[in-house]
């Protein structure tokens, strides 16, 4: 089989597995993203308070504090003695993402993901190619810059312009001109660079990548020998460079688990694959030998 066209990515999966099965993880992610917004909006909209605050720091059911460790790190670098509530909140969040994967924040929580996913989807549909080349490493430079700037200005400078927290805050507390930022990111991703914001620039995502460097939950190309090279997973993946070692690196000694820290655990590759190559797994389940052994046991 030869590679599908980008605009056709996922079509075969819909035909063979049915629409629901071919959008299972995508739907779960959208439900997750929207219900997290709803947790924050139920108070101001219906007067029933579940989560107060926003993604930088929140209080759920008046008891559970959650704080973004990245903004707290900037605050610390800027010279502020952090109070205990925020610190506990950041520890809880850190432990959670160490377990499920750092960039689960990006694909399952962050509201900007819906904007950039929409841009990427339209890019494929309208076959928009090329644009400005930006390195995927640029975000780590930006991450370093935000921390240096926090130290140099003795304030959380990045928060003045951070589109991620700005979007979430705008949805919950009112937009102001925040919609301009959302629109800018959408157009940037649509016309200038594929996955330009989330995949190349966003220092929040870079921070969560590093946080999830050794996280447990991972996607595995468990049945990689079934791959028919349709390329659908590469076309829908927001970080397509993470797939290759796991999917195609068997002869180079790579295990089937996607260990790249930039993988967002979005599960879209599982959705679009008609050969059931991918599934959620964990980083310890990465031995090629063990894998073959299990397969013999399970599939006689």
């Amino acid at each position, binding site marked *: 089989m030869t590679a599908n066209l980008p605009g056709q990515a996922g079509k075969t999966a819909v035909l063979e597995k049915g629409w629901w099965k071919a959008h299972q993880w995508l739907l779960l992610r959208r439900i997750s993203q929207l219900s997290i917004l709803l947790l924050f909006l139920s*108070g101001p909209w219906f007067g029933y*308070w579940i989560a*107060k*605050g*926003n993604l*930088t*720091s*929140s*209080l759920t059911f008046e008891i559970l*504090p959650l*704080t*973004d460790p990245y*903004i*707290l790190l900037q*605050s610390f670098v*800027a*010279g*502020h*003695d*952090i*109070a205990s*509530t*925020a610190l506990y*909140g950041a520890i809880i969040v850190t432990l959670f993402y160490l377990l499920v994967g750092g960039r689960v924040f990006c694909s399952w929580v962050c509201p900007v993901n819906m904007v950039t996913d929409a841009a990427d989807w339209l890019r494929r549909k309208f076959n928009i190619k090329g644009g400005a080349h930006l*390195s995927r*490493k*640029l975000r780590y*430079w*930006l991450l*370093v*810059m935000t921390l*240096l*700037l*926090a130290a*140099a*200005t*003795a*304030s*959380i*400078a*990045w*928060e*003045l*312009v951070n589109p991620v*927290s*700005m979007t979430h*805050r*705008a949805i*919950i*507390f*009112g*937009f*102001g*001109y*925040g919609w*301009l*930022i959302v629109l800018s990111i959408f157009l940037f991703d649509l016309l200038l660079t594929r996955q330009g914001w989330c995949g190349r620039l966003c220092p929040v995502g870079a921070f969560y990548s590093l946080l999830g460097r050794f996280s447990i939950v991972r996607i595995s190309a468990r049945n990689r020998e079934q791959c028919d090279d349709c390329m659908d997973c590469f076309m829908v993946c927001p970080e397509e460079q993470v797939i290759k070692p796991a999917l195609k690196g068997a002869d180079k000694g790579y295990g089937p688990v996607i260990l790249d820290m930039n993988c967002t655990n979005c599960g879209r590759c599982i959705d679009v694959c008609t050969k059931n190559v991918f599934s959620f797994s964990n980083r310890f389940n990465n031995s090629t030998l063990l894998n073959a052994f299990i397969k013999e046991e399970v599939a006689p």
Partner: protein
Amino acid sequence: MSVKSRQSHISRRRFIVETARAACGVALLGVGLGLYTRQAKSLPAMAIRPPGVKDESDFLAACVRCGLCVRDCPYDTLKLSRLGEPVATGTPYFEARDIPCEMCEDIPCIKACPTGALDKELTNIDDARMGLAVIVDQETCLNYQGLRCDVCHRVCPLINEAITLEPRHNQRSGKHTLFIPVVHSDSCTGCGKCERACVLEEAAIKILPLHLAKGELGHHYRLGWEEKQKAGKSLVTPDEEHQYNLPEGLKYEHEGQGLMKESR
């Protein structure tokens, strides 16, 4: 040069160029953002921070812009700055003329703050110093015209402490009294109820940030009457006893009268 070493030369060259490019691009962005940060630290005068904020610069290092203080403010006084407003994006503030601070005794905004940006050591709201009320316009303030408006005085939660009415002679009529509202910085919390209540189209009393509202004496400066009180006696009079070559018929009275005619 062999092919291999030329290739490694090219890849090294590319690595250096790409690294320099990324570093420069990001540094340029950083310079821009850094300058913007400096500007963002200049809080406009009409924006008042919640209680427990001492210094704007420290606050911008501590506040994570979560809005928990806003959520727990029972009077919807506090709001988060939106993009495009002249206050650092996402930080809480209020405008006294819209909704002033009601000075809740339990200070829920400070309790809600997870990072300590609002200082938990402030437990008595009367000790809050959000700003200072200032009569910014004597030309329109009704009390300065000799009328008995007194509204700012009467709405003040610390009436007769933070705002007092001081009687002055009314020079215009020549026979009435002006009741001049005087704000005392040792009591005024900057809650803004006076600014909210001012009956004029544009308030004549306004809450200003302390650094704009307060003067400061030179540190070497001493006020005679205070020094006199501290010392328990006059430090200038009586003068030291000394000899004068006074004109005939005059004497020097040391208890404060000075030069005077000798009584015969």
